[in-house]
């Protein structure tokens, strides 16, 4: 227990530098864990979110753009497809269910998506779960009514019975307001999917919105597809993408999203590198803090040596002190982690409607603290060597 007494007292004697150094370790450790968890969870969540669909059929173009637009309500639509294409795929024997969507308007920046009520009544957005209403009822497909996603409703301050005028385009422009008036009939319960940040209206309403091209009044932006079997997806992929040249069949959705993460993999690496560097700099901070305090420790070291403490024992105490600073820092690091991931997941939620599981267990929560503590222990080696070499007689002055 002697060594813990020495370490405890030393930490108290150098309380200020201990606190500052532990804080930098906390930030570094918190940042490292946050980068890792956000990266992993985003990838995991975004490749798993499909809101209950296996594929998306859309205009010829990028599969990724199609998925981002139709599933995540991000990006612009690559174009429209005639209603006949929707009718065709809906009746295709390999297709279990097909839900058309139309996009092109917004409500103060929140995307308005036209669809059919079956999206809410028939589709399980995650196994065993249908979209539910927290208030009101679904829209009437023939009326100018809307159901608002929970997040959008909160941000827009809308509740059942409120009315609004849609704005043209996907980007909010106050001057491009449509004349049509919609009534809010329902608010969706939170689903932690992109649907939460969408204003849902009947597809016919969006297609025939005042100011829209009447020639495209029956076009749809995309068709969300549920397949009867995975092999059906490859068959339709062959039919639309390889044999045809007019439409794009995005399948499987998870693999397409995984491609996105592969494309931005370099960014993850840059973030991880920055986090590693911050961790390294913080560990160097431990080294500097202890090393700089060695002058004031020499006398204590000499006294302890005179009392019989061995060189290795005292060097070990220095390494243990550095380790303790690392451990204290990493305890606080979890608080920093909680603060960072809460902020980041709120931003992701804000931007995509998707809620990442920020506090789910991730191996980084084990190896990052251990790594940081190990790094701190290593950084204690240099001061420990200095302690090892401390000249006892010289530091026990005065000499008589």
């Amino acid at each position, binding site marked *: 227990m002697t060594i813990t007494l020495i370490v405890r007292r030393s930490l108290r004697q150098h309380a200020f530098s201990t606190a500052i150094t532990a804080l930098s370790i906390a930030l570094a450790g918190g940042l490292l864990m946050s980068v890792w968890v956000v990266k992993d969870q985003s990838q995991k969540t975004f490749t798993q979110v499909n809101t209950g669909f296996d594929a998306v059929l859309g205009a010829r173009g990028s599969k990724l753009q199609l998925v981002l637009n139709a599933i995540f309500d991000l990006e612009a639509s690559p174009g429209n497809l005639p209603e006949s294409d929707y009718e065709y795929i809906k009746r295709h024997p390999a297709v279990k269910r097909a839900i058309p969507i139309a996009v092109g308007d917004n409500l103060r920046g929140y995307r308005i998506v036209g669809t059919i009520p079956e999206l809410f009544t028939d589709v399980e957005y995650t196994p065993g779960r249908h979209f539910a209403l927290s208030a009101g009822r679904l829209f009437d497909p023939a009326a100018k009514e809307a159901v608002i996603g929970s997040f959008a409703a909160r941000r827009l301050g809308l509740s059942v019975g409120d009315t609004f005028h849609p704005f043209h385009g996907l980007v909010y422009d106050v001057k491009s307001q449509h004349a049509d008036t919609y009534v809010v009939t329902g608010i969706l319960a939170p689903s932690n999917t992109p649907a939460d940040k969408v204003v849902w209206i009947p597809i016919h309403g969006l297609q025939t919105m005042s100011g829209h091209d009447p020639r495209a009044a029956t076009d749809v932006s995309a068709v969300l597809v549920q397949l009867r079997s995975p092999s059906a997806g490859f068959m339709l992929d062959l039919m639309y993408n390889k044999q045809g040249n007019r439409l794009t069949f995005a399948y499987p959705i998870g693999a397409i999203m995984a491609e996105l993460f592969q494309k931005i993999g370099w960014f993850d690496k840059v973030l991880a590198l920055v986090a590693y560097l911050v961790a390294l700099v913080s560990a160097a901070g431990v080294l500097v803090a202890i090393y700089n305090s060695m002058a004031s420790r020499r006398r204590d070291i000499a006294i302890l040596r*005179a009392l*019989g403490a061995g060189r290795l024992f005292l060097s070990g105490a220095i390494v243990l002190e550095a380790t303790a600073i690392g451990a204290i820092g990493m305890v606080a690091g979890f608080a920093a982690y909680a603060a960072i991931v809460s902020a980041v997941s709120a931003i992701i939620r804000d931007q995509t409607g998707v809620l990442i599981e920020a506090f789910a267990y991730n191996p980084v929560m084990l190896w990052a603290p251990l790594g940081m503590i190990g790094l701190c222990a290593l950084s204690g080696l240099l001061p420990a060597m200095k302690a090892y070499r401390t000249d006892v007689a010289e530091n026990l002055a005065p000499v008589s």
Partner: protein
Amino acid sequence: MSAGQNLLRLSGLTKTFPVPDGGNRTIIDVPEFSLGAGETVALRGESGSGKTTFLNLIAGILSPDSGSIWVGDGDMAALGEHRRDRLRASKIGYIFQTFNLLQGYTCLENVLLGMAFGGRADEARARALLERVGLSHRLGHFPRQLSTGQQQRVAVARALAKRPSLVLADEPTGNLDRANAREALRLIRETCAESGAALLLVSHDPDVLGLFQDVRDFSRMNLALKEAGP
């Protein structure tokens, strides 16, 4: 080889230090010295005569260039540093002129550390010793919160905490006023006697030396001083 009846026996002890002009200067050259178990000896020596170096050699803090230093059954001069530390931790208590208390530790912790490296840190004994030196009400105080005389009493308790067979005292009253010096000396001698420890005290103060029966002249013992001349 055994030191026989003597607790401390040294022979042919020399120690040189490098000097700025590039050569070496012999500071210690003591052919013989011995101290029996439980014996009390005072060494008279002027400042700068090498007394502290002599005590540091006996304590194994410094290693000699030649000679042997038997403390009980161990030759401090022949042991490696780790074993010297162990021998010092188990057999030698050291009282310094400037007390050398650990400022970040309480009185009780200072005394506990005095015995921690030689065996078990026995808190009951530490408390008893501090009570013996009249500081039972200062256990949780830090050295800076004590008077100089009280600090020296903590240093005495610390040196004796491990039940050493040899106590080295280097000008232990050098920083005390006359009244406190007498009190400290009384305490050192009494507690050494109570625990059966031999005491080797060095001082240049005639008042201090006058209190001891066996006073030896370090300048005569240390041939290096004779060679260097006055």
